[in-house]
């Protein structure tokens, strides 16, 4: 499958994520949109990794080119998982205090 399709898909996922973050006020939805952006990135990383590997394989059967891209995906997943746990905890606390998950209630640092 040509690499372009992966890129188009990742780009649309990322744009959806960005627009979601920008336009929505619900914290959980923003959160999900961030995840969407992260995963769009992951998808691109895996796709490019595979592309490089396939290209290198033609000249060298034992090549490991592209493996670092796949490794990086795992890093991002771990970071995303950690972020989810922290972020959800914050959202729970926020809900307890304000009985809402609307981020526009968070525009004041004092009090």
């Amino acid at each position, binding site marked *: 499958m040509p690499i372009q399709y992966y890129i188009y898909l990742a780009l649309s996922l990322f744009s959806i994520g960005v627009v979601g973050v920008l336009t929505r*006020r619900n914290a959980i939805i923003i959160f999900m949109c961030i995840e969407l952006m992260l995963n769009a990135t992951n998808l691109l990383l895996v796709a490019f990794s595979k592309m490089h590997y396939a290209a290198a394989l033609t000249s060298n059967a034992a090549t490991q080119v592209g493996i670092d891209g796949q490794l990086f995906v795992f890093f991002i997943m771990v970071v995303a998982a950690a972020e989810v746990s922290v972020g959800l905890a914050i959202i729970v606390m926020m809900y307890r205090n304000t009985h809402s998950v609307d981020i526009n209630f*968070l*525009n004041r640092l004092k009090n």
Partner: protein
Amino acid sequence: MNNLVYLVPLFPLIGFLINGLGRKSLSKQAIGAIGSATILASFVVSILLFLQVKSSGAIIANYFNFIDVEAIKIPFSFQIDQLSSLFLLIITGIGFLIHLYSTAYMNDEEAPHFARYFAYLNLFVFSMLLLVMGGNYVIMFIGWEGVGLCSYLLIGFWFKNDAYNYAAKKAFIMNRIGDLGFLLAIFWLINKLGTVTYGDVFANVGKLTPQDITIITALLFVGAMGKSAQLPLYTWLPDAMAGPTPVSALIHAATMVTAGIYMVARTNLLYTLAPATQGFIAIIGLATALFAATIALKQNDIKKVLAYSTVSQLGYMFLGLGVGAYTGAVFHVMTHAFFKALLFLGAGSVIHAMHHEQDIRKMGGLNKYLPITNITFLLGCLAIAGVPPFSGFFSKDEILAAAYLKNPILYYLGVVGALMTTFYMFRLYAMTFQGKFRGTHEQEHHLHESPSAMTIPLIVLAILAVIGGFFGVPEVIAHLFGASEVAAKQSHWLEGYLAPVFAASKALTTETPTNSSSELMMMGVVTGLVLVTIAFTWNKFSKYESTNAEETGLGKVLENKWYIDELYNAIIVNPLDALAMFLKNVVEKSGIDGLVNGVGNFVNYSSRQLRLIQSGQVGAYILMMVLSMLGILLLWINDGTIVNFLHKLF
């Protein structure tokens, strides 16, 4: 003996440190004793040095390199030769008498101020000693500045009076104008010869072109003009009378103001080689002598009369230097130190008795109350008027005789000045001591002779003022009294003593033979005129009655000192003030302050505007972040050069 040299300035320095640092804890007796004893010790060492120089010639003591850079080496050295040893005696001797006098005169001051006074006085003596002992122009300059500073401090001694502070500032600034000339002369010497040590300069004088010599001597003379109160820089000296009277006696009559004479006499070889400068000095000196004398004719403040008479006498000394009579000028410095210190201290005694009244129109008849002051003051007046055989006669006559040989016009004008001197001095004497008392009854009740600490210096100085002239008896007079040919040649002791200092100059000038009979006749005529003037003045002022009539015409101009102060104010002081106000109000306020405040205001304003971006809306932040990232991305894609530019930037 060489190792004693440094003791001379060291004693007053120690006195200055003790009195200055201990002013809060020492008692007045201790302060007075320390202040006077240190000067006495210096005087004793000076006598020893004088005897040493007399028997075996000049002493040069090198201590350390004061300035040592590349080719310029300026040693910290002292040179005690005939000229400086004579000045040492005058400074420490008269200095001691005035310290002694001050212990009584300043007794009304509280102990801390009393100590401050003596500390300044000791510091002054120290600086003056540096000035005359220094072995090169730089050391002389240190002393030169030191005496200027002490003069400033002592004129403004009663610093609670604004007028006195103003007088002190005036003296300091006037002196600075002269000092600049001195400094430039030193630079010029270093540039041309690479040395400022007297011996080296005079030995290498052949390397200088006539133009160089003329410029150096003229610049040095500018320095002397400031310090010795010559036209046009003389106005500070009469104002300097704001200081305590003994200070006027020591600094503004006997010692500091003669620094200019000392400097020119020290540099006599260069001056002899620069006839243009010499002529200039003679004219300035004579003009000052006459100008100051005319002002003194109409002054009513006892100290102001003496101040203008000092300016006038300094003019005579410069006239002497200008016509090449170096010995005569130094001789007049010496005799003038005696009689002017005497007159000032006498005036101090009068002021003391009159409870700080200085207007002679309110005095009169003091001879009954102040017998010692009366007699000593009269002797001082006779000496300054030049009545033989008092000291002023010999020294003034020597200068005038030299002036006659140079140009008879100088002589005639000099005689006119001498007659004016006689007139104003006897006007002062007659109005103060003769006639009947014109002050208040309360003042009359309190009139009393001063304590012995004040009268003893008066008596000593009076003796010196009477006999001081016999150190330099002219040859013709010695002949007149039947001295042998050999004895007559040696009758001018001072000339013989100072001969080594002026030998090089003398070798360059051709001796004009003097006609002894005409010299005697001139002396006789001048003496006769002086005596007539005394009789006339005495007659006119001994029965002086105070009138309230305003002076008119020339008298008014003279009373107001030719309006010179007003003139200086109009052409120099006021424009400078206006410039200062302009700089302060316009340049400083709207320029400098505007710039500094503008930077602050700009930062304030821009931060206030930038703060609006921090709205607290998370969405807005994110939008901005995304837009920025998009912007960077677009730049990257579209135009690599901008990215390169950013790379260079960070």
